[in-house]
């Protein structure tokens, strides 16, 4: 089956004062119909930039140096703005992290919701309104008619996020890109939103790219997982493989360093020494080298993806050769 989205060799850089910093380095991945792909990483690894590149939403000082984003046979990166506008909000929609600032404060919810509906689905004013109310009910806002007349600042964070989801879903897109959709929310609200997203994804038969740094969230929602570090994809596998048999040293260290609410209380929490390198584009070979407990001199050569198992890859030659047994 043809994948829904194919990202090939995506390379993105930021330009500041004539200096170019590459933040996403030759990213390759696919998203299949109906699946949830999680891109996991810490701040600065480039995961948000990857997501924003797909719909051409990068800030003016960003440059896409190379790559293709193939959606339904066409390369999104080579489309004109007009062509892209037909896809945005319509075939591919996005949910952003900072909900409070992602909704326009001077327009009502109804106004912002019906906008895309009228443009992409061609409804007239009345039908668009009715449809919008239905979508709001679908995302769990009971007092939908009242919400339509409200302004964003009158709603709580959880409700705002539901509105955001409603806006994204309205035109029944094939793919939703969610950039840290629950990070700013309380834990109990986060659970509500998570369940909502999961249920709607199944009902509408959508694919989802979920960007997050929360390992727990990944375990709850993902079908497949990509671990990103310093602009590189370090590991790619099904969610079960990632948690049961993590291959890459970074993945392993990351999973071990998260304090959990079960398990042995007395054990010390293993942490990854050091910090993410600054200008990682200049590093030769493996970018995790300085912090890796398994490093050997040959790690300083270029590290392509090695096959670990069925649909399981890691950018680590030692893992690829089976030199890193599971504990």
């Amino acid at each position, binding site marked *: 089956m043809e994948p829904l989205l194919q990202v090939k060799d995506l390379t993105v850089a930021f330009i500041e004062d004539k200096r170019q910093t590459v933040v996403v380095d030759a990213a390759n991945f696919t998203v299949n119909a109906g699946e949830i792909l999680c891109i996991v990483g810490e701040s600065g690894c480039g995961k948000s930039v990857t997501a924003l590149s797909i*719909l051409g*939403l990068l*800030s*003016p000082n960003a440059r896409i140096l190379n790559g293709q984003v193939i959606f339904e046979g066409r390369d999104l990166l080579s489309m004109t*703005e*007009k062509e*892209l*506008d*037909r*896809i*945005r*909000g*319509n075939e591919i*929609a*996005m949910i*952003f992290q*900072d909900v409070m*600032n*992602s*909704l*326009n*404060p*001077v*327009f009502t919810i109804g106004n912002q919701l019906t*906008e*895309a509906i009228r*443009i*992409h689905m061609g409804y007239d004013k009345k039908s668009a309104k009715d449809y919008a109310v239905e979508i709001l009910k679908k995302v769990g806002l009971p007092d939908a008619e009242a919400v339509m007349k409200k*302004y964003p*600042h009158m709603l709580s964070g959880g409700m705002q996020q539901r509105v*955001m989801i409603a*806006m994204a879903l309205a035109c029944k897109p094939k793919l939703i890109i969610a950039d840290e959709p629950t990070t700013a929310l309380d834990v109990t609200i986060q659970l509500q939103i998570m369940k909502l997203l999961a249920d709607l994804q199944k009902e509408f038969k959508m694919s989802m790219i979920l960007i997050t740094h929360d390992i727990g969230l990944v375990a709850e929602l993902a079908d497949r997982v990509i671990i990103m570090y310093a602009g590189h994809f370090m590991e790619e596998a099904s969610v079960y493989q990632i948690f049961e048999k993590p291959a890459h040293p970074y993945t392993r260290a990351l999973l071990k360093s998260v304090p959990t609410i079960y398990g042995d209380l007395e054990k010390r929490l293993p942490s990854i020494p050091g910090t993410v390198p600054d200008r990682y584009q200049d590093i030769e070979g493996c970018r995790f080298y300085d912090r890796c407990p398994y490093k050997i001199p040959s790690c300083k050569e270029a590290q392509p993806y090695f096959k670990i198992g069925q649909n399981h890859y890691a950018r680590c030659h030692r893992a690829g050769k089976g030199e890193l047994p599971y504990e």
Partner: protein
Amino acid sequence: MIKYIIKRILIAIPVLIGITILDYAIMSLAGSPLEMMLGPKTTQAALEAKAIQLGLDKPIYVQYYVWLKNVLKGNLGYSIKNYQPVSQIIREHLGPTLLLMGTSLIVGLMIAIPLGIYSAVHRYTKRDYALVTLSFLGSSIPSFFLSLIFIYLFNVKLGWLPSGGMKTTGGDGGFGDLVRHMVMPVMVLAVSIAGSNIRYVRGAVLEILQKDYVRTAKSKGIGRFLTINKHALRNALIPIVTVIGMHLPILFGGAVIIEQIFSWPGLGLVTMNAIIGRDYPVIMGVALLTAAVVLAANLITDIVYALIDPTIKYH
């Protein structure tokens, strides 16, 4: 909201009175109008008689009190120079000033806002740099200099436009005539207004363009036009309204230099002459008017904010 407006108006009254007290005090520091009337033949007796007639022999605070009492009765006094009622002087000259300044403000903003938006959207391109440079020029060129250039070009050389006044002497007047007389002064003023505001609008729009909700709008595929002119502009209106609010009092004050060069019968010139001549009643009349206008402009601006921006609440 109504309560808020009433509260503001009630507070405005003591503020106005306070301003006029300050004005009167500062004005009297400049000296008495009597000194301006001194001629080689003026006798001391005549001077003292005049002083009594005008009430200038009394101490300052009494003078002020008398003035205030009259104002509250609706009487702004009489010009020391030509004995005309101050209210009449203001009435006669306010119209032309409002006309000139109002038109200039509208034209200036009609230039500044679209150009400012264009500049912000095309940030760092050559077009942007060109516009910013032009706007610097516009706000830096002294208005008298530009006026003289225009007069030279359009009146002396090309003969298209009259060099001054509000209507052609001896002519029938009429709308077309008025327009022809207005073109140059309005152009000069509009250039200056546009000059400073292009950069201001550009800055306001630039800041809005960075906001997350503009990115959300773009992500919905509603198109560039709507994204900028609906989502961004509506929010950029708030700082723009601030600027307009700040300009409103200037509308009433008039541009003295322009009025002088183009012989425009406006309030600016009148005020200038009154100050030079220490014509207390006229000065105070204009001061009162200006203060009232500033307070009103602030209130109107605040009301407009509340209308544009739903996150603002006044209690």
